């Protein structure tokens, strides 16, 4: 028995060695074989043989696309959209109807495809486009009307026609996607502040224009620019133009009637009037009280009957 046990021990020892060597031999061969095979990795996105969008199924729901040439302006898609992603602007009536806006906010779109189902001409469709990124979410709105002023006339399909001349699917959206990489649009608040600073550093452009004007109509036009331009009737005149003309002709002496414009409009008007009547251009910011005060004084003098006597001493250097 003992001999047999020894035999089996020796046998198992050499069997183990054999198994080890054998498994290493086979394993190394298999791993080496992978060295000479093509890796299955697809080097997306820049080293693919065919663009991935060309390999997608036909009914893939990528970014939406509208072919404005065959859009009938029926607004069915706008109504169908459950989350108000589509905005269509239509102006004019009858033959003059034009679409001034066709925006799709892709940031909100949930790719449900409802808009494409009721489109009578197939103008709005999902494209296979899906690769895009934007620095700013504001850029994610696709605007399919390039020129809102000119607008786009709605398409009138002929009776009984079932096929429509659609542009190749994806060609329009692809161009729009390229614009997504544009830098962030400036934040409105920041941009506004900068503008105020620019105006504030010297005599306003409008005041410069008003110096030496003799034509009352031109003077009124300059004044109108200082108004808010809302034709709100708060001043008692039907339009901003009427109020401006009243000031220009001297009928109206109150310069602070523009309510929507508020203080800004008032100061601007003061400056213009001051510049027109006295030739005075304030050197500093119009916000600062001394400057406004000087202008007001000059105008008061004028109204009290100082006439055309322009005090030559009033030069910018004094005001500072």
């Amino acid at each position, binding site marked *: 028995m003992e001999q047999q046990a020894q035999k089996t021990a020796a046998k198992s*020892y050499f069997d183990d*060695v054999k198994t080890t060597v054998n498994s*290493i*031999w*086979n*394993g*190394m*061969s*298999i*791993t*080496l*074989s*992978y*060295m*000479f*095979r*093509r*890796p*299955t*990795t697809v*080097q997306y996105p820049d080293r693919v043989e065919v663009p991935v969008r060309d390999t997608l199924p036909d009914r893939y729901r990528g970014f939406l696309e509208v072919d404005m040439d065959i859009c009938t302006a029926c607004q069915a898609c706008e109504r169908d959209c459950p989350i108000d992603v589509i905005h269509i602007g239509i102006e004019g009536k009858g033959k003059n109807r034009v679409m001034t806006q066709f925006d799709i906010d892709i940031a909100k779109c949930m790719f449900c495809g409802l808009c494409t189902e009721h489109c009578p001409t197939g103008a709005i469709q999902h494209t296979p486009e899906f690769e895009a990124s934007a620095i700013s979410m504001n850029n994610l709105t696709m605007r399919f009307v390039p020129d809102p002023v000119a607008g786009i006339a709605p398409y009138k399909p002929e009776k009984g026609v079932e096929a429509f001349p659609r542009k190749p699917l994806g060609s329009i959206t692809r161009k729009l996607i390229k614009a997504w990489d544009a830098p962030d649009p400036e934040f409105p608040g920041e941009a506004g502040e900068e503008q105020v600073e620019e105006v504030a550093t010297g005599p306003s452009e409008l005041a410069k224009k008003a110096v030496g004007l003799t034509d009352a109509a031109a003077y009124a036009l300059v004044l109108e620019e200082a108004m808010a331009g809302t034709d709100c009737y708060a001043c008692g005149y039907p339009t901003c133009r009427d109020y401006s003309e009243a000031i220009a002709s001297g009928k109206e002496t109150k310069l602070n009637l523009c309510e929507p414009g508020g203080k800004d409009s008032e100061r601007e008007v003061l400056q213009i009037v001051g510049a027109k009547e006295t030739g005075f251009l304030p050197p500093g910011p119009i916000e600062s009280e001394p400057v406004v005060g000087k202008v007001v004084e000059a105008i008061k003098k004028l109204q009290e009957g100082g006439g055309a006597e322009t005090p030559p001493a009033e030069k910018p250097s004094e005001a500072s």
Partner: protein
Amino acid sequence: VQEFADSLIQSWFQVEPAAWPYTQLFYVGVMAAFCALVFFGFLAPFAGLVSWMERKWAARIQSRIGPNRAGPHGILVWLADGIKLFLKEDLIPKDADKILYRLGPYFKLVGLALAFVALPFGAGLIIADLNIGILYIMAVTGLVVVGIIVSGWSSNSKWGLLGGFRSAAQVISYEIPVALAVLVVILSAGTLSTQGIIMAQGGAPWEWFMFRSPMHLVAFVIFCVGMLAEGNRTPFDLPEAEQELVSGFNTEYSGLRFSAFFLAEFANVWVMNAIGVLVFMGGWMIPFVPAETVLEGGLLWKLASFGVFFIKVFIGVQVVLWIRWTLPRIRIDQMMDLCWKQLVPATIVLIVLVAGYEVLVHSAPWIVTVMGIALSALALAMTVVFIRKTRENIRIVGDEVSMENW
């Protein structure tokens, strides 16, 4: 190098080296300079390239592509890694033993750097041809384990400590079969000097110690296994077993110290292959060219010998990487079992057999040539069989040989 240092002394200080009191000091300085040159001029880039090759091997074996963006085929990725590690914060854990923690990586690097004192790169390209060269290399590479234990212990982390202890157990255990396997060759070579062992062999495969007898071949296999274990390479990478120990002894390290560990790990791949090549595979010997021609020849001969050595080591490095991505890690009890129950007894038997064989060779020298040719022919046949098997492995799953898609 000694001659070179002597000539330097003569030209710089205008004194006779033998009569100059600072000669020995100057030797040490020159040696240190050479060591630094080898380490940073050759070994650091080599370690970087090996790390790139390792990732490429891993990727191809797993049907991936691996690094391919930095430089052609991603060959510069190691520079990017190095710069990244350079810029990382060098963090020291709160309760770590700060002095030892800082020293740990350098113990490991020093252990490797010391090995290069006696490790040849080619004919005459050796910092110091010690007469106990191979013994010295075996001894100083044991210093690596000090670095591992120190860093594992001092980082005050479970993972680090466990990794360090495992490494201590492993490296000390596997020193024995490796040393005994080298002893087999020493019996045949009759010298401990690294250059002596190389010159006892020939350039052609049948003159290598590997193919001197079947016993030598087995000793070579045992040496390879032991070296893998000593270098903490898979399937013996227990000290840094990711699944159990996060990263083992270097868990807490970051930044430059971490990169020092990596440099040491990949430099170690060179060291272990270089030892294997010089002991078993003929070192820098150029086939069919006697050693004297190379030794007395000009710079071109020396460079050729370096080329031969480099190619052999390079192939060995590839095999080490290839093994890493083939074999799974074994358990710690299996590892100890393999060392003490299988390899150590086997090497002791081999030493006895080789001692007898060398007596036989002494009376009938032709046996060596016959054995060498027979065994190298066998190895060639096995290689052919292996390549055919690999092609069959590709064909059998309906794939084909393709080197596309890098």
